[in-house]
């Protein structure tokens, strides 16, 4: 093999760099965070004692809230629509700040813990939910 030893050596270096995150985190798997809903806030929004159901069923929201929010964003900003009719016929204002976060007012537990666990950094908070971010300063 043409310069076999050198090729193998660099292959090894390359592989160890690429797989480093895997080895560094070996055995450190943690349990997924428990998602908690701020019952008080949700109850406040519903206007009754009990919590109001979310816009769409929980399974759909947990797997596809980003698509829903993405489409809300375009509908509100670009098409000037204001309200969303859910699959069971209820009407919601399409607003991350005013609709979503009024129920899920516990952003740290509800949003951030899971995002952190999944290693995703949504840029939503750069502009929305200003109260929470600025309040910390």
């Amino acid at each position, binding site marked *: 093999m043409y310069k076999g030893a050198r090729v193998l050596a660099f292959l090894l270096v390359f592989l160890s760099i690429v797989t480093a995150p895997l080895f560094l985190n070996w055995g450190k798997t943690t349990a997924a965070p428990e998602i908690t809903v701020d019952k008080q806030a949700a109850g406040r929004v519903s206007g009754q004692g009990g919590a109001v159901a979310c816009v769409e069923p929980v399974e759909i929201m947990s797997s596809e809230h980003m*698509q829903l929010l*993405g*489409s809300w964003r375009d509908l509100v900003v*670009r098409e000037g629509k204001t309200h969303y*009719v*859910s699959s069971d016929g209820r*009407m919601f204002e399409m607003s991350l700040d005013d609709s979503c976060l009024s129920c899920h007012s516990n952003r740290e537990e509800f949003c951030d813990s899971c995002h952190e666990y999944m290693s995703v950094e949504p840029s939503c908070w750069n*502009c929305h939910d*200003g109260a929470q971010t*600025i309040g910390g300063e």
Partner: protein
Amino acid sequence: MRELSTSGPGDTGMARRDFVTSGIVILAAGMAGLGGTGALVGCTQVALSDKSAVVADEAAEAGHWGLVIDVAKLNAEGNFGRIKAACHQKHNVPLIHDAKTEVKWIWAESFEHSFIDLENTYMNKSIKDLEFPMLCNHCENPVCVRVCPTQATFQRPDGIVDMDYHRCIGCRFCMTGCPFNARSLNFYDPRPYIGEVDPGYPTRTKGVVEKCNFCVERLKQGLAPYCVEESNGSFVFGDLDDPGSDVRKALETGFSIRRRVSLGTGPSVYYLVEGGEPDA
């Protein structure tokens, strides 16, 4: 179309109202938008109803929104500072004390600076000394929209030139194209420069361009823009396409000018330099 109101409704929590049962006309089903997004990311289609998205009944509508500023009245009232403060505070415009990187939606300039092609060597001092509010002109043929490579800035059917901060890549072609210097880039994170964030409107992030939006978020609720509300009558807002509208009536009362008309962008902001109040 609803009349514009200048005071807030008692209850803006529209999410709690059942629009369907109160028999409100659903203006448009935005299925296209939702379907498109779903297809794009290749996910399983959310089981969304085909009614999906509507416009609230309160929303004010127009063929082409326009603003008339009675400059003499504004200067007599002397309340431009309040107007600017309301606009900037309500829209979380950062307060940056650096002329090169500041962000502004509305500000004042002298006649000779705002109407560079109309300035005369000898002219009436009372006009020369007036303060002219500068803001986005919401042009009929907006250069910014023409040059934007991502449609992050776009013209709505009602004439308003709006910004989609989510899509802006910060190339600043719109700023270069705008003949009115009405646009500002967030040269850095604006949040440290905002005194108290108003939760009614999102802040912006570094690297995106912003400007006056004719308060689209207020029009949605049937409310007039903040500047109009604060102006005590010197700012008149309405439908330029409607001969009976307040703006058209205001324009009947005297001589009005627009900035840099010869460039063909067709500003929707008119300055009434001579004339009285619409009712006078």
